[in-house]
């Protein structure tokens, strides 16, 4: 049995006075302190990061982390575009399954705001196919193509998408670590400028800096000493074609469906048991598709369901989604996102989510997506 016993995240945002490894160091020290663990009690580290090699000519990060920790243990970097954090967590869980009585740390981080938006967009495009890059498609462009197809197929409008952003900004206003802490109105979303039609600035997650870390362990002595612990019921990863055009359906992420079906099967719980979920809302359309692909909402009904606000904190709904603010308002430092999602579920299940605490949450799910759906990680936690 693997348990998460601690979580620390830096603030997300434009953190110009901090480098990538300043952020990593803050997250590492923060989570160690919280669990009262010494560096030498960590048996392995898994690091999620996408862009340091592309933007900063900065690779071999495991060695850099060894320098921070002053230890000589195995350290691995996982890269799966925006699912780098989720992939690192999944690898860490696999490592624990194979090794009894170990403590591992999973850290995710990204430094994005040192660069112009065009440079960051170009870096992110590295996760798209060569043909997509050559056509001038960006990630906002690929999700815009999904959105355009979905809206036309099911007869929805841009207003249906806007509900996602309004909800997640409200949640972000309750999270002191979020990039954006400002509530927004539907009209503001609809009036914001386009980045890739039909998606607008306020349909999109921002370019952020940040780092998040969790401690995961299967060491009974360590678990017993911790104030908080949450059971990792399952963590499943699935892949698909890198190119959107090669998929069977443009408005569906099959990798999410496969990972979710496996994760629920392994966890031996049902969709209706989940009280809190963090889903990968890199763009508003992505949350609607995620809710459908995860099996929470029927295919094609997502555009209507989101307007009912049942997944908003305080609605009294059975499943509250993206209490952290999601990628939209909490921010999207790519490698950190997957860890922050799992961390937010940890906070909710241990009653530490403060003014956004969902009452008596017992089971939570995190869904982390890479690229336009080429990788998906679904993790289920429970108490």
């Amino acid at each position: 049995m693997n348990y998460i016993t601690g979580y620390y995240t830096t603030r997300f945002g434009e953190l110009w006075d901090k480098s990538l490894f300043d952020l990593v160091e803050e997250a590492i020290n923060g989570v160690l302190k919280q669990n009262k663990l010494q560096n030498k009690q960590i048996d392995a580290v898994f690091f999620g990061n996408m862009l340091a090699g592309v933007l900063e000519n900065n690779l071999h990060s495991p060695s850099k982390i060894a320098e921070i920790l002053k230890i000589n243990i195995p350290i691995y970097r996982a890269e799966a575009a925006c699912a780098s954090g989720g992939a690192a967590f999944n690898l860490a869980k696999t490592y624990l399954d194979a090794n009894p009585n170990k403590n591992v740390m999973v850290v995710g981080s990204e430094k994005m705001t040192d660069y112009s938006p065009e440079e960051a967009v170009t870096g992110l495009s590295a996760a798209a196919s060569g043909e997509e890059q050559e056509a001038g498609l960006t990630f906002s462009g690929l999700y815009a193509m999904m959105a355009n197809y979905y809206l036309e197929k099911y007869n929805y409008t841009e207003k249906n998408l806007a509900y996602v952003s309004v909800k997640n900004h409200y949640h972000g206003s309750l999270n002191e670590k979020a990039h954006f802490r400002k509530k927004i109105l539907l009209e503001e979303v609809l009036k914001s400028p386009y980045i890739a039609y039909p998606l607008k600035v306020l349909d999109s997650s921002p370019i952020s800096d940040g780092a998040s870390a969790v401690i995961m362990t299967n060491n009974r002595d360590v678990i017993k000493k911790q104030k908080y612990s949450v059971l990792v019921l399952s963590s499943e990863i699935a892949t698909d074609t890198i190119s959107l055009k090669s998929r069977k359906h443009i408005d569906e992420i099959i990798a999410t469906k496969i990972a979710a079906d496996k994760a629920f099967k392994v966890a031996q719980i049902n969709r209706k048991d989940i009280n809190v979920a963090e889903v990968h809302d890199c763009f508003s359309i992505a949350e609607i598709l995620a809710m459908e692909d995860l099996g929470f909402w029927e295919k094609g009904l997502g555009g209507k369901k989101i307007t009912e606000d049942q997944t908003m904190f305080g609605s009294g709904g059975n499943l509250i989604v993206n209490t952290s603010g999601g990628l939209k308002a909490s921010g999207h430092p790519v490698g950190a996102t997957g860890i922050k999602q799992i961390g937010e579920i940890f906070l909710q299940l241990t009653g530490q989510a403060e003014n956004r605490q969902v009452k008596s949450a017992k089971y939570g799910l995190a869904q982390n997506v890479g690229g336009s759906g080429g990788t998906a990680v679904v993790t289920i936690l429970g108490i």
Partner: protein
Amino acid sequence: MISPIKIWRRQKEIRKVLGLKGKILTWTKIFTPGSDFKKYAPYPVVLVELESKEKVYGQLVDGDDIDLKIGAEVISVLRKVRAASDDGVIAYGIKFKPL
């Protein structure tokens, strides 16, 4: 990074999908592009299903916003796809125009 060799390798494949008709499956218009496409923005990109059922991405040229419709008929054409690299090699590729 784009190198002349990469451009040469890719361009060998272009003729196979040149002058072919198809329909727009979905589309977008990019307002915030990456560095290499900044000077062309905003520009429309379409995903086309050719009559052969093969799917191809490309920018829509020689058309207006009114031509950007799911199901609209287009034909593939040869166009410059990005500014010349520092090596001076111009990259050509597939774009589409309305029929």
